[in-house]
């Protein structure tokens, strides 16, 4: 592995100059002459039959060009597809129309679409559409939805159960029977709203002359958008160009393929004019996918000495009203497979009920299934420790997979690549000063002050692979990545990647990789992404896969370029290619470093092609499709220290320490930034954020006034450190860093607060741990005593 100058350097981001000067180009910034503004009228009711829609008044309004209802689009748009179909789960995919035809099933379901000369006019007209609804009973809770007598969303999905998925390894019944203790807990992993700062948007431009569609849209995976758009519209893939270069955050919510962009395309095609749709924040809350929303029944079998012998989980996952693009894979594979965590647990059984309710569809949200699994394990570790009177750190340590045993296959069948879990734990304990803290905690308790410390020792799975495994899991796509490295005659390099960073900084880190591989200045490398008209087919950015998989693809493509260059250099220097040494952008003859051709000279020669070696074609450009042999498994220990005010229930963060191991690191500054942001999101789930529906299916937390997205004064200072355990599955030895913070932080924070509340005998509270919830728990605990 070549660790040279750029690898490991905190290079400033090359994305930033356009973003700090206001010259980035997000979808809403695209301006085409003659563009119409699209506004989607959405259902105000969670479950209702559409009796009639009167659009006549709206059609007459100033500036209005056309109004469409669900029936108008049935012929031009196939249903919104679901693209993750777990086998052997009795999966039922209900029909999901871009605009509802007869029945609306959640607040936010599209009912009609208006296009006008400007947004103000389109909004006025949408408000003038008269829809007569017949109200139907609604259900929002996934457990209640499966019970007899619950309102049914679909005639052909009994008990609203879209799937039941099971996975088992070992013998859980025996483990529970033979255990010294069985610790059981119902855990709610509540619903979250991803809330990227850029709302979703699409600009569709169908050219009736050429039959070509150009679609700018907020996508983490533009080729998947192209493929699915072709499938639902019938426009050939060859005629569709999807552009998503500057995307203002996604966190999973811009993976799915949505009704909004489908409607924009259908109308642009119908009218032959560009159509722009930009959701407002209210729409983002109700019509962009949500995340999490599990109810988990957990039983853990343990021995008296703290050895965990088994875990059984029965989960109810709320899928919302329809199955979004990747949704069925999130609470099943991405959750169930990770239920061993960093521990040796020989017996594991999981059963997941995917339930349809009258709520916004859920799908991947940063971490996607892995935070839910980590929350289950890390909360249960503390409960087991509490039951056995052990230190929570020691229970974890006792069950860790030892570093000598990697690669290690867990009971859920995953093979973990590499790890040294104790090293990360020890480093975190050292930074936080664990022993000293316990003394301070004891002293503070004597004074009536509530200090608490919480741990999360996690492992996650990144860079999902290989594609064969994707197929076995029912994922309707591959999990490889592509890269083309094109050297221009001047020796400047364009890299075309199928990854689509939207904040993760790969325009910088990928350039660092290529600069090292080809020995060219960083400024000579441009990274092109997010435009299907320029890049090779790629799978996009999610699951912390871009650098581990996409970065590997470009390393291999760059090496092919380098090798071809060596043949040309050898020919020009009249030696055998075996006698050529490549070092920092120079090809020279072994033992004669003054006989040299620079990379730039070789590039020029490749394009002139006046004097090429036999059998070598002109040009200097290579493509590589990389399908890794395995996933990567980043891990680490997060520690949170809090003080809870017993009079108010308010939580104050005193320390937050994160020791992550993401393997080798290309750009430490960027990785630290990813960790910071992830911690903020995971921590916010623990104490602030929650999507609240009333029993009629109204989203009560449907604005930034009501949904507690953290501000700068609501989060602590993060103390970030790393251990380094490279992975063998890719040439850089790195694992992926985009989601660790979110996966690890939620249970660390909850465990800290519960630890603080220990004097009251409180062992568990469901999130978010708001002052009110904590205060009430304190009051109730005192009532009993």
């Amino acid at each position, binding site marked *: 592995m070549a660790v040279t100058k750029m690898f490991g350097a905190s290079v400033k981001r090359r994305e930033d100059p356009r973003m*700090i000067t206001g010259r980035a180009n997000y979808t809403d910034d695209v301006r085409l002459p003659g563009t119409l503004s699209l506004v989607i009228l959405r259902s105000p009711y969670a479950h209702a039959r559409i009796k009639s829609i009167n659009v006549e008044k709206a059609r007459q309004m100033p500036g209005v060009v056309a109004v469409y209802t669900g029936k108008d689009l049935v012929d031009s748009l196939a249903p919104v597809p679901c693209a993750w179909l777990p086998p052997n789960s009795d999966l039922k995919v209900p029909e999901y129309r871009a605009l509802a035809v007869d029945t609306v099933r959640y607040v936010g379901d599209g009912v009609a679409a208006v296009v006008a000369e400007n947004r103000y006019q389109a909004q006025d007209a949408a408000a003038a559409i008269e829809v007569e609804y017949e109200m139907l009973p609604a259900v929002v809770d996934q457990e209640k939805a499966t019970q007899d007598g619950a309102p049914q969303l679909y005639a052909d999905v009994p008990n609203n159960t879209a799937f039941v998925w099971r996975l088992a390894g070992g013998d859980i019944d025996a483990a529970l029977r033979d255990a010294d203790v069985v610790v059981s807990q119902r855990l709610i992993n509540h619903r979250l709203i991803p809330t990227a700062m850029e709302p979703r948007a699409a600009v569709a431009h169908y050219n009736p002359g050429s039959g070509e569609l150009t679609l700018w849209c907020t996508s983490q995976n533009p080729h998947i958008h192209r493929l699915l758009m072709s499938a639902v519209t019938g426009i050939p893939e060859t005629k569709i160009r999807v552009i998503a270069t500057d995307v203002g955050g996604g966190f999973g919510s811009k993976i799915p393929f949505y009704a909004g962009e489908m409607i924009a395309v259908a109308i642009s095609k119908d009218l032959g004019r560009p159509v722009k749709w930009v959701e407002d924040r209210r729409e983002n809350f109700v019509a962009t996918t949500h995340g999490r929303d599990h109810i988990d029944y957990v039983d853990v079998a343990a021995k008296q000495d703290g050895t965990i012998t088994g875990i059984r989980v029965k989960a109810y996952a709320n899928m919302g009203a329809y199955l979004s693009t990747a949704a069925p894979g999130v609470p099943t594979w991405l959750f169930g497979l990770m239920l061993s965590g960093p521990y040796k647990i020989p017996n594991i059984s999981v059963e997941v009920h995917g339930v349809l309710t009258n709520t916004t569809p859920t799908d991947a949200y940063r971490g996607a299934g892995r935070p839910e699994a980590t929350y289950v394990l890390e909360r249960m570790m503390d409960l087991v420790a509490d039951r056995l009177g052990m230190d929570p750190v020691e229970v974890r340590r006792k069950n860790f997979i030892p570093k000598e045993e990697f690669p290690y296959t867990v009971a859920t069948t995953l093979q973990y690549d590499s790890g040294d879990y104790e090293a990360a734990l020890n480093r975190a304990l050292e930074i936080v000063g664990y022993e000293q803290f316990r003394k301070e905690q004891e002293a503070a308790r004597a004074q009536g002050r509530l200090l608490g410390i919480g741990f999360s020792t996690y492992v996650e799975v990144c860079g999902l692979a290989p594609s064969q495994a994707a197929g076995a899991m029912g994922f309707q796509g591959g999990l490889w990545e592509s890269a083309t490295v094109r050297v221009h005659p001047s020796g400047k390099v364009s890299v075309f990647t199928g990854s689509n960073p939207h904040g993760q900084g790969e325009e910088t880190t990928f350039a660092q990789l290529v600069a090292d591989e080809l020995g060219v200045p960083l400024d000579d490398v441009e990274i092109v992404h997010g435009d299907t008209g320029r890049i090779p087919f790629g799978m996009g950015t999610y699951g912390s896969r871009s650098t581990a998989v996409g970065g590997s693809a470009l390393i291999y493509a760059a090496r092919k370029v380098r090798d071809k260059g060596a043949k040309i250099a050898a020919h020009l220097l009249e030696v055998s290619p075996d006698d050529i040494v490549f070092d920092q952008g120079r090809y020279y003859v072994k033992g004669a470093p003054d006989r040299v051709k620079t990379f730039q000279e070789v590039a020029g020669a490749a394009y002139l092609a006046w004097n090429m070696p036999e059998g070598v074609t002109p040009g200097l450009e290579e493509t590589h499709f990389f399908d890794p042999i395995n996933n990567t498994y980043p891990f680490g220990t997060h520690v949170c220290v809090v003080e809870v005010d017993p009079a108010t229930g308010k939580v104050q963060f005193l320390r937050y320490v994160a020791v992550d191991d993401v393997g080798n690191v290309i750009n430490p500054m960027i990785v630290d930034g*990813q960790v*910071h942001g992830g911690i903020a999101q995971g921590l916010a789930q623990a104490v602030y954020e929650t999507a609240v529906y009333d029993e009629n299916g109204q989203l009560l937390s449907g604005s930034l006034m009501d949904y507690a997205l953290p501000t*700068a*004064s609501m989060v602590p200072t*993060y103390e970030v450190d790393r251990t380094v355990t490279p992975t063998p599955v890719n040439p850089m030895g790195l694992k992926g860093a985009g989601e660790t913070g979110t996966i690890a932080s939620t249970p660390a924070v909850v465990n800290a607060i519960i630890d603080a509340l220990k004097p009251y005998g409180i062992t568990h509270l469901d999130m978010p741990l708001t002052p009110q919830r904590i205060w009430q728990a304190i009051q109730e605990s005192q009532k009993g005593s």
Partner: protein
Amino acid sequence: MKQQITVTVNGVQYTSEVEPRLLLVHYLRDVLNLTGTHVGCDTSQCGACTVIMNGSAVKSCTVLAVQADGAEITTIEGLAKDGQLHPLQEGFWEMHGLQCGFCTPGMIMTAYDLLQKNPNPTEEEIRHGLEGNLCRCTGYQNIVRSIQYAADKMRGAAAAAGGE
């Protein structure tokens, strides 16, 4: 019934006929094509649309274009002078104060206002000063450091100018 307004934006005077209900942010973005100012919520919570109007930060989704008649406005596009980044822009670049970049123009303009009023803020004052601006990517720590970087640099420049 359209109304005529005259607004100076980044030192350039514009006269336009606008609908009375047109929001300032849409005027900047759709009439003047200054798309660096972003719309994140259009309900005044996220702060992505923050600009400087007559010397103070305003959320331009909550100001009507007609209210800006006669005003002087600075947007993110007007912050760099003569090809030199403003210390805040430099700070955000140096300290990795942005990831997706969508909230960044509003963050920078709010920080501009903050440092004008308080050239030497504590970390707590910075965090408090940013409460009207939301960022989903960074967890704020590097935004705070970016503003500290700019504050140090601006105070240094002011001291040097004072000493001359």
